[in-house]
């Protein structure tokens, strides 16, 4: 794994691929085989007719490593395009998390109050628990989870980052 050094930066890389068997293994195998980091990974088919999938990888590394990651992904045969949102153009990043908090009394009230401040939605509730759905930049999701920790956080499921560029252009 890449050591975190002062020049290490976090990058969000979007990869448009042909949705064929093994394509995710090619991308993930490239990261493990060459010792690159994966902080989060999101993948789904985005065009059911053209059968293309979009893989969004959040990675970290020195600028040299990031440049290599983009180039190495670019030479995988089923890859259509590689875009680094962090460098090439300003992108928007969103992540969704489902956050389960269990507790009663003041802590339960505080959890609900904070969830409103974060515009999280309650999607499941019992007398002793909530499941919140929160969407936002990864840092916002991080902050919300940190706040829930002392209030009875029991479980978290995160989707990983989905990213898109601002403005009218496609990837």
């Amino acid at each position, binding site marked *: 794994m890449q050591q975190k050094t002062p020049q290490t930066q976090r990058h969000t890389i979007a990869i448009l691929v042909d949705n064929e068997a093994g394509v995710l293994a090619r991308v993930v195998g490239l990261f493990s085989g060459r010792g690159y980091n994966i902080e989060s990974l999101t993948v789904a088919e985005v065009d059911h007719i053209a*059968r293309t999938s979009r893989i969004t990888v959040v990675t970290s590394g020195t600028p040299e490593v990031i440049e290599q990651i983009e180039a*190495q992904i670019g030479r995988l045969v089923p890859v259509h395009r590689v875009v680094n949102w962090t460098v090439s153009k300003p992108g928007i990043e969103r992540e969704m998390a489902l956050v389960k908090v269990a507790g009663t009394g003041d802590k339960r009230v505080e959890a609900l109050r904070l969830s409103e401040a974060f515009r999280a939605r309650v999607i499941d509730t019992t007398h002793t628990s909530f499941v919140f759905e929160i969407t936002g930049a990864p840092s916002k999701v991080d902050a919300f989870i940190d706040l829930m920790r002392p209030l009875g956080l029991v479980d978290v499921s995160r989707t990983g980052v989905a990213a898109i560029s601002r403005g009218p252009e496609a990837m």
Partner: protein
Amino acid sequence: MDRDGSGMATIGSKAGTMQMSGAEIVIRALKEQGVKHIFGYPGGAVLPIYDALFADDEIIHVLCRHEQGAAHAAEGYARSTGRPGVVLVTSGPGATNAVTGLADAMMDSIPLVMISGQVATHLIGNDAFQECDTVGITRPCTKHNCLVKDPNELARAIHEAFQIATTGRPGPVVVDIPKDVQFKQGAYVSPDAVRHRTYRPKTDPDLSAIVKAVEMMAAAKKPVFYTGGGIINAGLEASRLLRELVKLTGFPITSTLMGLGAYPASDPQWLGMLGMHGTVEANNAMHDCDLMICLGARFDDRVTGRVDAFSPNSVKIHLDIDASQINKNVRVDLPIVADAAKALKEMLHFWKTQKRKADAPALAEWWKAIESWRAVKSLAYRPSKSVIKPQYAIDRLYELTKTKEVYITTEVGQHQMWAAQRFPFEHPNRWMTSGGLGTMGYGLPAALGVQMAHKDALVIDIAGEASVQMTMQEMSTAAQYDLPIKIFILNNQYMGMVRQWQQLLHGGRYSHSYSEALPDFVRLAEAYGCVGLRAETPDELDAKILEMISVNKPVLFDCRVDPKENVYPMIPSGAAHNEMILAELSDTEVSDEGKMLL
């Protein structure tokens, strides 16, 4: 790749003109791709394809004795012809045995297409007999691979495999075909009906970069061309253009191990090979240059030595067809991503039309420095009248074969370096060696592949006695197909390069690098129905070499050489280009950091 075919039918299959079995599709597709020779080994899961091969009388199948041998033979074939090598193996062990050859081809950018049988579709994932996840195992050591589950997608998959293997940066491609798919009927499509959905290698250079490069070249005071296997892969035209450009500029030129032959070794502008065992003039030129023009090489660690001390004062131009090689090991100032022949053509065009001239006075000074390094004669060795020095053996081999059409393959180790240093190549595609992966056992089967493609040429595997035993079984193949390859073994009874490193880096503790029991190579050759020869003294060497050349049979030549000879000059691990050790000064201490490196 696993395309299910629905909604993705190809143009040709819509026409639905020709239905045939999957196995017949394979043979037909290979023929349409111009395949004349296949190197392979049959087994349960490829029997339908072997059956189709039986019915065909055009494709020549070479039955090797091990799948690794088949893969290396295909590599030798590809490297010496510029055409893709084709391998046919069965599932499970057939595929895993070939993995070394695939990894080798991947590292050295050799175009291979390997067809592997797979267990029937319904058995995949069941731990069936001779099942392995071929696509999973070969994924990191191929340029691309796929499992074809639909016979209607088979022709397309094979045509795409050839396209991918041979274009852009070449490499190995595996097409894994379950046995039921080989039996089932499917539609055949011809190559012209196939267009890959994503694969578009960039081969045309950015002309503004070329113009900039030419400008930098004209301004350079201490330039050097550093060329690699990319020139060979770009075809004969690239070598021709390179020669023209080097002549026109008057610049010195050196090359990597993989690039030998792209520029003629007899030319005065040639500095010899660079890198760990390169010449002093090549490495010092690399270190002191002010402009490095890297063409089709990849700044490999064998070439650069210590990266932070690598050519510290130069501006660097890097031409490569693979964008991922740019700035990988060394930051460069001017990247050009393109096919070498196309880029060289444009460089020549702009050099001529812009009436560029090299800085002649500066270049004269630069050559003066280079000549002083050349005067060191870094490849010199201490001759002997009593024992055969390995360097002497290579020199004699060259002298006695130089009038013939010679192709040289090697194994890996000391003998490989001596061959690279001393055997002069005048033409591309004459030198087949395992560079990136460093595969002992490459040379003998590679020689088979070369000889298969060049029936009348003299094909010599310069070998070591340790390496050659790794694929010795292929002598049987040579005998079966009347391939008169010459296996010239520099027998020093040690894994020589391992011994050399143990001497220099591990206090002379020769841990398991001595072969206590070697076969009698002469009798071994005879057992295979080949010819065995042995030379033990310098006096008898010439006559034995001449005998080897005159025999029209495969020969194992046991050349007994000095067991203690080391390869010099040498850049020790962790050192810079200008810190080479020469033959006389072999007590240099290597830093602890250096010992960590290979």
